[in-house]
Protein backbone atom coordinates (compact mmCIF):
# COMPACT_ATOMS: atom_id res chain seq x y z
CA UNK A 1 0.00 0.00 0.00
CA UNK A 2 1.43 3.33 -0.99
CA UNK A 3 1.76 5.95 1.71
CA UNK A 4 -0.70 8.84 1.49
CA UNK A 5 0.80 11.58 -0.61
CA UNK A 6 2.72 13.99 1.58
CA UNK A 7 3.04 16.57 -1.14
CA UNK A 8 -0.47 17.78 -0.42
CA UNK A 9 0.96 19.59 2.62
CA UNK A 10 -1.84 20.15 5.05
CA UNK A 11 -4.52 18.69 2.86
CA UNK A 12 -5.82 15.24 3.72
CA UNK A 13 -6.83 13.47 0.53
CA UNK A 14 -9.98 11.43 0.45
CA UNK A 15 -8.52 8.13 -0.66
CA UNK A 16 -11.87 6.70 -1.69
CA UNK A 17 -12.69 9.30 -4.30
CA UNK A 18 -9.57 10.28 -6.15
CA UNK A 19 -8.62 13.83 -5.35
CA UNK A 20 -11.54 14.13 -2.98
CA UNK A 21 -12.01 17.77 -2.22
CA UNK A 22 -9.17 18.94 -4.46
CA UNK A 23 -11.66 20.55 -6.78
CA UNK A 24 -10.96 24.20 -6.53
CA UNK A 25 -8.26 25.74 -8.68
CA UNK A 26 -6.20 26.72 -5.65
CA UNK A 27 -6.25 23.23 -4.20
CA UNK A 28 -5.40 21.72 -7.57
CA UNK A 29 -2.56 24.20 -8.04
CA UNK A 30 -1.22 23.29 -4.59
CA UNK A 31 -1.48 19.63 -5.56
CA UNK A 32 0.47 20.13 -8.81
CA UNK A 33 2.96 22.82 -7.75
CA UNK A 34 5.55 20.56 -6.01
CA UNK A 35 5.77 18.48 -9.19
CA UNK A 36 5.51 21.25 -11.77
CA UNK A 37 9.27 21.58 -12.29
CA UNK A 38 9.60 17.84 -12.72
CA UNK A 39 6.73 17.77 -15.22
CA UNK A 40 8.39 20.58 -17.18
CA UNK A 41 11.73 18.79 -17.09
CA UNK A 42 10.26 15.54 -18.38
CA UNK A 43 8.31 17.35 -21.12
CA UNK A 44 11.45 19.18 -22.17
CA UNK A 45 13.50 16.00 -22.13
CA UNK A 46 10.99 13.98 -24.14
CA UNK A 47 9.81 16.59 -26.63
CA UNK A 48 12.46 19.23 -27.24
CA UNK A 49 10.84 22.16 -29.04
CA UNK A 50 7.21 21.19 -28.36
CA UNK A 51 7.71 20.73 -24.66
CA UNK A 52 5.58 23.66 -23.52
CA UNK A 53 2.60 22.46 -25.57
CA UNK A 54 3.00 18.95 -24.20
CA UNK A 55 3.25 20.28 -20.66
CA UNK A 56 0.12 22.38 -21.17
CA UNK A 57 -1.76 19.39 -22.64
CA UNK A 58 -0.72 17.22 -19.69
CA UNK A 59 -1.88 19.85 -17.21
CA UNK A 60 -5.21 20.23 -19.00
CA UNK A 61 -5.63 16.45 -18.95
CA UNK A 62 -4.78 16.33 -15.25
CA UNK A 63 -7.37 19.03 -14.56
CA UNK A 64 -10.06 17.26 -16.60
CA UNK A 65 -9.39 13.83 -15.13
CA UNK A 66 -8.51 14.84 -11.58
CA UNK A 67 -11.36 12.73 -10.24
CA UNK A 68 -9.66 9.62 -11.60
CA UNK A 69 -6.51 10.11 -9.53
CA UNK A 70 -6.24 7.30 -7.00
CA UNK A 71 -3.66 7.94 -4.28
CA UNK A 72 -3.63 4.25 -3.37
CA UNK A 73 -2.17 3.41 -6.79
CA UNK A 74 0.72 5.82 -6.76
CA UNK A 75 1.89 9.25 -5.73
CA UNK A 76 0.76 12.49 -7.28
CA UNK A 77 4.20 12.85 -8.84
CA UNK A 78 3.95 9.48 -10.56
CA UNK A 79 0.46 10.23 -11.85
CA UNK A 80 1.40 13.64 -13.21
CA UNK A 81 4.62 12.41 -14.82
CA UNK A 82 2.72 9.55 -16.43
CA UNK A 83 0.36 12.07 -18.00
CA UNK A 84 3.33 14.04 -19.33
CA UNK A 85 4.92 10.90 -20.76
CA UNK A 86 1.62 9.91 -22.44
CA UNK A 87 1.19 13.35 -23.99
CA UNK A 88 4.81 13.33 -25.11
CA UNK A 89 4.34 9.98 -26.82
CA UNK A 90 1.29 11.29 -28.67
CA UNK A 91 3.17 14.41 -29.67
CA UNK A 92 6.13 12.41 -30.96
CA UNK A 93 3.85 10.24 -33.05
CA UNK A 94 2.24 13.32 -34.58
CA UNK A 95 5.57 14.74 -35.66
CA UNK A 96 7.51 11.54 -36.26
CA UNK A 97 8.37 12.59 -39.79
CA UNK A 98 9.56 16.01 -38.77
CA UNK A 99 13.21 16.76 -38.22
CA UNK A 100 14.10 16.17 -34.58
CA UNK A 101 16.29 19.09 -33.62
CA UNK A 102 18.64 18.65 -30.70
CA UNK A 103 19.10 21.62 -28.39
CA UNK A 104 22.77 22.51 -28.26
CA UNK A 105 24.02 21.71 -24.75
CA UNK A 106 26.10 24.40 -23.14
CA UNK A 107 29.02 22.24 -21.94
CA UNK A 108 31.27 19.96 -23.93
CA UNK A 109 28.97 20.25 -26.94
CA UNK A 110 30.30 17.38 -29.04
CA UNK A 111 30.26 14.86 -26.26
CA UNK A 112 26.89 15.97 -24.92
CA UNK A 113 25.42 15.97 -28.39
CA UNK A 114 26.51 12.36 -28.81
CA UNK A 115 24.92 11.38 -25.50
CA UNK A 116 21.74 13.27 -26.32
CA UNK A 117 21.45 11.62 -29.71
CA UNK A 118 22.12 8.20 -28.22
CA UNK A 119 19.43 8.69 -25.57
CA UNK A 120 16.97 9.84 -28.21
CA UNK A 121 17.63 6.76 -30.30
CA UNK A 122 16.44 4.43 -27.54
CA UNK A 123 13.07 2.72 -27.82
CA UNK A 124 10.14 4.60 -26.27
CA UNK A 125 10.09 2.47 -23.12
CA UNK A 126 13.85 2.50 -22.65
CA UNK A 127 13.91 6.25 -23.13
CA UNK A 128 11.12 6.91 -20.61
CA UNK A 129 12.89 4.69 -18.08
CA UNK A 130 16.19 6.51 -18.61
CA UNK A 131 14.61 9.96 -18.45
CA UNK A 132 12.71 9.17 -15.24
CA UNK A 133 15.69 7.51 -13.57
CA UNK A 134 18.54 9.84 -14.54
CA UNK A 135 16.89 13.17 -15.29
CA UNK A 136 14.00 13.10 -12.81
CA UNK A 137 15.74 11.10 -10.06
CA UNK A 138 12.73 8.85 -9.62
CA UNK A 139 13.25 5.64 -7.65
CA UNK A 140 12.75 2.39 -9.52
CA UNK A 141 9.54 1.64 -7.59
CA UNK A 142 7.91 4.86 -8.81
CA UNK A 143 9.10 4.30 -12.36
CA UNK A 144 7.47 0.87 -12.23
CA UNK A 145 4.13 2.46 -11.31
CA UNK A 146 4.50 5.10 -14.01
CA UNK A 147 5.32 2.46 -16.63
CA UNK A 148 2.73 -0.04 -15.34
CA UNK A 149 5.24 -2.82 -14.88
CA UNK A 150 7.25 -4.52 -12.15
CA UNK A 151 10.40 -3.14 -10.59
CA UNK A 152 12.31 -6.07 -12.12
CA UNK A 153 11.13 -5.04 -15.57
CA UNK A 154 12.27 -1.47 -14.96
CA UNK A 155 15.69 -2.69 -13.89
CA UNK A 156 16.06 -4.88 -16.95
CA UNK A 157 14.81 -2.06 -19.20
CA UNK A 158 17.40 0.28 -17.69
CA UNK A 159 20.06 -2.38 -18.07
CA UNK A 160 19.15 -2.87 -21.74
CA UNK A 161 19.17 0.88 -22.25
CA UNK A 162 22.63 1.20 -20.71
CA UNK A 163 23.92 -1.62 -22.88
CA UNK A 164 22.50 0.03 -25.96
CA UNK A 165 24.00 3.40 -24.97
CA UNK A 166 27.39 1.82 -24.30
CA UNK A 167 27.25 0.30 -27.75
CA UNK A 168 26.23 3.62 -29.36
CA UNK A 169 28.75 5.73 -27.48
CA UNK A 170 31.72 3.42 -28.04
CA UNK A 171 34.00 1.50 -25.78
CA UNK A 172 35.67 4.46 -24.13
CA UNK A 173 32.69 5.17 -21.86
Amino acid at each position, binding site marked *: MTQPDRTLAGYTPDMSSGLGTVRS*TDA*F*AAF*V*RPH*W*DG*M*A*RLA*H*RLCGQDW*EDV*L*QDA*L*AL*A*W*RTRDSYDASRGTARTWLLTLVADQARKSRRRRRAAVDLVDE*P*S*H*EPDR*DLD*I*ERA*VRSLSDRQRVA*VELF*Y*FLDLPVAEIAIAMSCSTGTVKSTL*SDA*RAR*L*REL*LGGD*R
Partner: protein
Amino acid sequence: MTDIDETLRAYADRWTQAEPCAPDLDDSLARARASRNRRIWPVLVAVACAVALAAGLTVALSHHGPGSSASDANPAVELAKLQRIARSAATSGGDPYASADAVRTTWRRAEEVMDAKSEPNVPDDAIWLIQIHGSRLGDASWIGPAGTGPAPGPYLVLGVPIGRSHGGFEGIRQHPVDLALLGTVIRLFPAGTPPIPARLRQLARVTARQNSDPKAGAQAVRTDLRSAERVVDDSKSGEPDHAVWLIQLTGRFTCGVCKGVGPPPKGRYITLIVDAAAPYRTAAFGIGNAPVDLASLGKVITLLP
Protein backbone atom coordinates in the same frame (compact mmCIF):
# COMPACT_ATOMS: atom_id res chain seq x y z
CA MET B 1 27.87 -0.62 -16.05
CA THR B 2 29.28 2.10 -13.82
CA ASP B 3 30.92 3.92 -16.72
CA ILE B 4 27.75 4.59 -18.65
CA ASP B 5 25.88 5.15 -15.41
CA GLU B 6 28.29 7.93 -14.42
CA THR B 7 28.23 9.39 -17.92
CA LEU B 8 24.45 9.65 -17.79
CA ARG B 9 24.37 11.14 -14.29
CA ALA B 10 27.00 13.74 -15.20
CA TYR B 11 25.16 14.62 -18.39
CA ALA B 12 21.85 14.88 -16.49
CA ASP B 13 23.49 17.34 -14.09
CA ARG B 14 24.88 19.45 -16.91
CA TRP B 15 21.56 19.36 -18.75
CA THR B 16 19.65 20.37 -15.64
CA GLN B 17 21.85 23.44 -15.21
CA ALA B 18 21.08 24.61 -18.74
CA GLU B 19 17.41 23.69 -18.54
CA PRO B 20 14.85 26.46 -19.22
CA CYS B 21 12.38 27.54 -16.55
CA ALA B 22 8.99 25.93 -16.25
CA PRO B 23 6.14 28.21 -17.29
CA ASP B 24 4.10 29.89 -14.57
CA LEU B 25 1.77 27.23 -13.15
CA ASP B 26 -1.08 29.63 -12.39
CA ASP B 27 -1.10 30.92 -15.96
CA SER B 28 -0.97 27.41 -17.35
CA LEU B 29 -3.77 26.30 -15.08
CA ALA B 30 -5.93 29.23 -16.17
CA ARG B 31 -5.44 28.12 -19.75
CA ALA B 32 -6.13 24.49 -18.86
CA ARG B 33 -9.39 25.45 -17.22
CA ALA B 34 -10.31 27.69 -20.12
CA SER B 35 -9.73 24.91 -22.64
CA ARG B 36 -11.91 22.60 -20.62
CA ASN B 37 -14.69 25.11 -20.45
CA ARG B 38 -14.68 25.88 -24.15
CA ARG B 39 -17.65 23.67 -24.87
CA ILE B 40 -19.85 25.20 -22.24
CA TRP B 41 -18.58 28.70 -22.88
CA PRO B 42 -21.82 30.02 -24.44
CA VAL B 43 -23.61 29.16 -21.18
CA LEU B 44 -20.87 30.40 -18.86
CA VAL B 45 -20.25 33.64 -20.68
CA ALA B 46 -23.50 35.13 -19.43
CA VAL B 47 -22.67 34.23 -15.84
CA ALA B 48 -19.06 35.38 -16.20
CA CYS B 49 -20.14 38.70 -17.69
CA ALA B 50 -22.59 39.29 -14.86
CA VAL B 51 -19.96 38.56 -12.23
CA ALA B 52 -17.29 40.58 -14.02
CA LEU B 53 -19.70 43.47 -14.51
CA ALA B 54 -20.24 43.60 -10.78
CA ALA B 55 -16.49 43.70 -10.29
CA GLY B 56 -16.16 46.47 -12.84
CA LEU B 57 -13.98 44.44 -15.15
CA THR B 58 -16.33 43.43 -17.90
CA VAL B 59 -16.20 46.71 -19.76
CA ALA B 60 -12.62 46.09 -20.74
CA LEU B 61 -12.70 42.35 -21.13
CA SER B 62 -15.88 42.01 -23.15
CA HIS B 63 -15.56 45.11 -25.29
CA HIS B 64 -14.93 44.17 -28.88
CA GLY B 65 -13.24 47.03 -30.60
CA PRO B 66 -11.29 47.10 -33.83
CA GLY B 67 -9.05 44.11 -34.32
CA SER B 68 -10.99 41.80 -32.02
CA SER B 69 -10.87 38.15 -32.88
CA ALA B 70 -12.29 34.88 -31.71
CA SER B 71 -9.12 34.17 -29.79
CA ASP B 72 -9.68 37.00 -27.36
CA ALA B 73 -13.36 36.28 -26.77
CA ASN B 74 -12.52 34.21 -23.72
CA PRO B 75 -11.67 36.50 -20.78
CA ALA B 76 -9.87 33.75 -18.87
CA VAL B 77 -7.54 33.04 -21.79
CA GLU B 78 -6.98 36.72 -22.46
CA LEU B 79 -6.26 37.55 -18.84
CA ALA B 80 -3.85 34.63 -18.49
CA LYS B 81 -2.08 35.70 -21.67
CA LEU B 82 -1.68 39.27 -20.43
CA GLN B 83 -0.41 38.09 -17.07
CA ARG B 84 2.12 35.86 -18.79
CA ILE B 85 3.35 38.66 -21.03
CA ALA B 86 3.60 41.08 -18.11
CA ARG B 87 5.35 38.54 -15.88
CA SER B 88 7.87 37.80 -18.56
CA ALA B 89 8.51 41.50 -19.24
CA ALA B 90 8.86 42.33 -15.54
CA THR B 91 11.29 39.48 -14.97
CA SER B 92 13.40 40.13 -18.05
CA GLY B 93 13.24 43.84 -17.29
CA GLY B 94 14.98 43.12 -14.00
CA ASP B 95 12.25 43.37 -11.36
CA PRO B 96 10.04 40.34 -10.77
CA TYR B 97 8.59 42.16 -7.76
CA ALA B 98 6.93 44.71 -10.04
CA SER B 99 3.17 45.22 -10.29
CA ALA B 100 1.25 45.27 -13.57
CA ASP B 101 -2.00 46.81 -14.81
CA ALA B 102 -3.65 46.77 -18.20
CA VAL B 103 -6.32 48.58 -20.14
CA ARG B 104 -7.92 47.89 -23.49
CA THR B 105 -7.65 50.75 -25.95
CA THR B 106 -6.45 51.60 -29.47
CA TRP B 107 -3.12 52.75 -30.89
CA ARG B 108 -4.28 56.33 -31.38
CA ARG B 109 -5.78 56.71 -27.92
CA ALA B 110 -2.67 55.19 -26.33
CA GLU B 111 -0.44 57.53 -28.29
CA GLU B 112 -2.48 60.54 -27.21
CA VAL B 113 -2.25 59.65 -23.56
CA MET B 114 1.42 58.72 -23.77
CA ASP B 115 2.24 61.77 -25.86
CA ALA B 116 3.93 59.54 -28.43
CA LYS B 117 3.71 59.44 -32.21
CA SER B 118 4.05 56.48 -34.58
CA GLU B 119 4.16 56.35 -38.37
CA PRO B 120 1.06 57.96 -39.89
CA ASN B 121 0.06 54.83 -41.83
CA VAL B 122 -0.10 52.55 -38.79
CA PRO B 123 -3.70 51.26 -38.56
CA ASP B 124 -5.64 52.25 -35.46
CA ASP B 125 -5.94 48.69 -34.16
CA ALA B 126 -7.18 47.61 -30.77
CA ILE B 127 -4.42 46.93 -28.26
CA TRP B 128 -3.88 46.07 -24.64
CA LEU B 129 -1.74 48.68 -22.96
CA ILE B 130 0.16 47.10 -20.08
CA GLN B 131 1.97 49.22 -17.52
CA ILE B 132 4.51 47.56 -15.23
CA HIS B 133 5.64 49.47 -12.17
CA GLY B 134 8.89 48.39 -10.55
CA SER B 135 12.46 49.34 -9.83
CA ARG B 136 15.08 50.17 -12.50
CA LEU B 137 13.09 48.42 -15.20
CA GLY B 138 14.93 47.84 -18.44
CA ASP B 139 18.29 47.69 -16.73
CA ALA B 140 18.65 43.94 -17.06
CA SER B 141 17.07 43.46 -20.48
CA TRP B 142 19.34 45.77 -22.48
CA ILE B 143 21.65 43.61 -24.56
CA GLY B 144 23.67 46.30 -26.32
CA PRO B 145 26.98 47.76 -25.10
CA ALA B 146 26.87 49.11 -21.57
CA GLY B 147 25.78 52.72 -21.37
CA THR B 148 24.19 52.78 -24.83
CA GLY B 149 20.70 51.62 -23.87
CA PRO B 150 17.74 53.65 -22.67
CA ALA B 151 17.93 54.84 -19.08
CA PRO B 152 16.17 52.42 -16.73
CA GLY B 153 13.00 53.69 -15.15
CA PRO B 154 10.22 52.77 -12.77
CA TYR B 155 7.66 52.14 -15.56
CA LEU B 156 7.71 49.73 -18.47
CA VAL B 157 4.85 50.14 -20.94
CA LEU B 158 3.89 47.46 -23.44
CA GLY B 159 1.45 47.68 -26.32
CA VAL B 160 0.06 44.27 -27.21
CA PRO B 161 -1.98 44.13 -30.43
CA ILE B 162 -5.24 42.22 -30.10
CA GLY B 163 -5.73 39.47 -32.67
CA ARG B 164 -2.20 39.74 -34.03
CA SER B 165 0.99 38.17 -32.76
CA HIS B 166 3.32 40.90 -33.99
CA GLY B 167 3.63 44.66 -34.14
CA GLY B 168 3.65 45.51 -30.44
CA PHE B 169 5.79 48.09 -28.73
CA GLU B 170 7.67 48.44 -25.47
CA GLY B 171 9.14 51.46 -23.75
CA ILE B 172 10.71 52.58 -20.49
CA ARG B 173 9.14 55.62 -18.84
CA GLN B 174 10.13 57.78 -15.92
CA HIS B 175 6.51 58.79 -15.29
CA PRO B 176 3.37 56.67 -15.27
CA VAL B 177 0.74 56.61 -17.99
CA ASP B 178 -2.69 57.40 -16.54
CA LEU B 179 -4.38 54.23 -17.72
CA ALA B 180 -7.70 55.28 -16.21
CA LEU B 181 -8.03 57.85 -18.99
CA LEU B 182 -8.26 54.98 -21.47
CA GLY B 183 -10.85 52.74 -19.83
CA THR B 184 -11.34 50.28 -17.03
CA VAL B 185 -7.99 49.35 -15.52
CA ILE B 186 -7.37 45.68 -14.75
CA ARG B 187 -4.85 44.72 -12.07
CA LEU B 188 -2.84 41.86 -13.58
CA PHE B 189 -0.79 41.25 -10.43
CA PRO B 190 0.17 43.30 -7.38
CA ALA B 191 3.70 44.28 -6.37
CA GLY B 192 5.85 41.99 -4.30
CA THR B 193 4.61 38.69 -5.67
CA PRO B 194 7.49 37.31 -7.73
CA PRO B 195 7.23 33.79 -9.06
CA ILE B 196 10.28 31.96 -7.71
CA PRO B 197 12.24 31.04 -10.81
CA ALA B 198 12.20 27.29 -11.23
CA ARG B 199 15.83 27.65 -12.23
CA LEU B 200 16.75 28.61 -8.65
CA ARG B 201 15.37 25.40 -7.22
CA GLN B 202 17.13 23.38 -9.90
CA LEU B 203 20.34 25.20 -9.24
CA ALA B 204 20.07 24.57 -5.50
CA ARG B 205 19.25 20.91 -6.09
CA VAL B 206 22.14 20.38 -8.49
CA THR B 207 24.58 22.28 -6.27
CA ALA B 208 23.60 20.16 -3.27
CA ARG B 209 24.09 16.98 -5.25
CA GLN B 210 27.40 18.05 -6.77
CA ASN B 211 28.75 18.87 -3.32
CA SER B 212 27.91 15.57 -1.66
CA ASP B 213 24.69 16.38 0.20
CA PRO B 214 21.63 15.77 -1.97
CA LYS B 215 19.36 16.22 1.06
CA ALA B 216 20.58 19.74 1.83
CA GLY B 217 18.14 22.56 2.51
CA ALA B 218 18.24 25.85 0.65
CA GLN B 219 16.93 29.37 1.17
CA ALA B 220 17.21 32.47 -0.97
CA VAL B 221 16.70 36.20 -0.82
CA ARG B 222 16.47 38.68 -3.65
CA THR B 223 18.82 41.60 -3.30
CA ASP B 224 21.48 43.48 -5.24
CA LEU B 225 25.04 42.37 -5.95
CA ARG B 226 26.71 44.88 -3.61
CA SER B 227 24.54 43.93 -0.63
CA ALA B 228 25.03 40.23 -1.31
CA GLU B 229 28.80 40.60 -1.51
CA ARG B 230 28.80 42.67 1.68
CA VAL B 231 27.04 40.05 3.79
CA VAL B 232 28.89 37.07 2.28
CA ASP B 233 32.52 38.15 2.66
CA ASP B 234 32.62 41.92 2.25
CA SER B 235 34.32 41.53 -1.12
CA LYS B 236 33.76 43.51 -4.30
CA SER B 237 33.72 41.75 -7.65
CA GLY B 238 34.03 44.94 -9.69
CA GLU B 239 30.92 44.05 -11.67
CA PRO B 240 28.26 46.76 -12.06
CA ASP B 241 25.58 46.49 -9.40
CA HIS B 242 22.51 44.57 -10.48
CA ALA B 243 19.69 42.45 -9.04
CA VAL B 244 20.74 39.01 -7.77
CA TRP B 245 19.48 36.11 -5.69
CA LEU B 246 21.62 35.10 -2.76
CA ILE B 247 21.13 31.39 -2.13
CA GLN B 248 22.34 29.60 0.99
CA LEU B 249 22.41 25.80 1.17
CA THR B 250 22.60 24.11 4.55
CA GLY B 251 24.02 20.60 4.92
CA ARG B 252 27.32 18.75 5.17
CA PHE B 253 29.23 19.52 2.04
CA THR B 254 32.47 18.46 0.44
CA CYS B 255 33.24 20.71 -2.47
CA GLY B 256 32.75 18.76 -5.67
CA VAL B 257 33.60 21.60 -8.00
CA CYS B 258 36.80 22.90 -6.38
CA LYS B 259 40.09 22.23 -8.15
CA GLY B 260 43.60 22.46 -6.73
CA VAL B 261 46.17 20.78 -4.55
CA GLY B 262 45.07 19.19 -1.29
CA PRO B 263 41.75 17.90 -0.05
CA PRO B 264 38.61 19.67 -1.26
CA PRO B 265 37.15 22.20 1.21
CA LYS B 266 34.30 21.11 3.45
CA GLY B 267 31.63 23.11 5.22
CA ARG B 268 28.08 23.31 6.48
CA TYR B 269 27.03 26.19 4.27
CA ILE B 270 27.29 26.94 0.56
CA THR B 271 26.45 30.40 -0.73
CA LEU B 272 25.67 31.23 -4.33
CA ILE B 273 25.13 34.65 -5.84
CA VAL B 274 23.01 34.24 -8.94
CA ASP B 275 21.85 36.89 -11.42
CA ALA B 276 18.16 37.66 -10.92
CA ALA B 277 17.43 37.62 -14.65
CA ALA B 278 17.69 34.76 -17.11
CA PRO B 279 19.92 32.89 -17.76
CA TYR B 280 20.59 33.11 -13.97
CA ARG B 281 24.39 33.11 -14.22
CA THR B 282 26.19 32.14 -11.03
CA ALA B 283 28.35 35.13 -10.10
CA ALA B 284 29.96 33.68 -6.95
CA PHE B 285 30.26 30.39 -5.07
CA GLY B 286 31.46 29.90 -1.51
CA ILE B 287 31.68 27.06 1.01
CA GLY B 288 32.30 27.40 4.77
CA ASN B 289 31.02 26.90 8.29
CA ALA B 290 29.65 30.39 8.97
CA PRO B 291 26.06 31.08 7.91
CA VAL B 292 25.05 34.25 6.12
CA ASP B 293 22.20 36.28 7.62
CA LEU B 294 19.83 36.24 4.66
CA ALA B 295 17.04 37.88 6.65
CA SER B 296 19.08 41.07 6.89
CA LEU B 297 18.63 41.48 3.14
CA GLY B 298 14.89 40.95 2.78
CA LYS B 299 12.19 38.34 2.65
CA VAL B 300 13.71 34.85 2.82
CA ILE B 301 12.24 32.17 0.57
CA THR B 302 12.68 28.46 1.12
CA LEU B 303 13.83 26.71 -2.05
CA LEU B 304 14.53 23.25 -0.61
CA PRO B 305 13.02 22.35 2.77
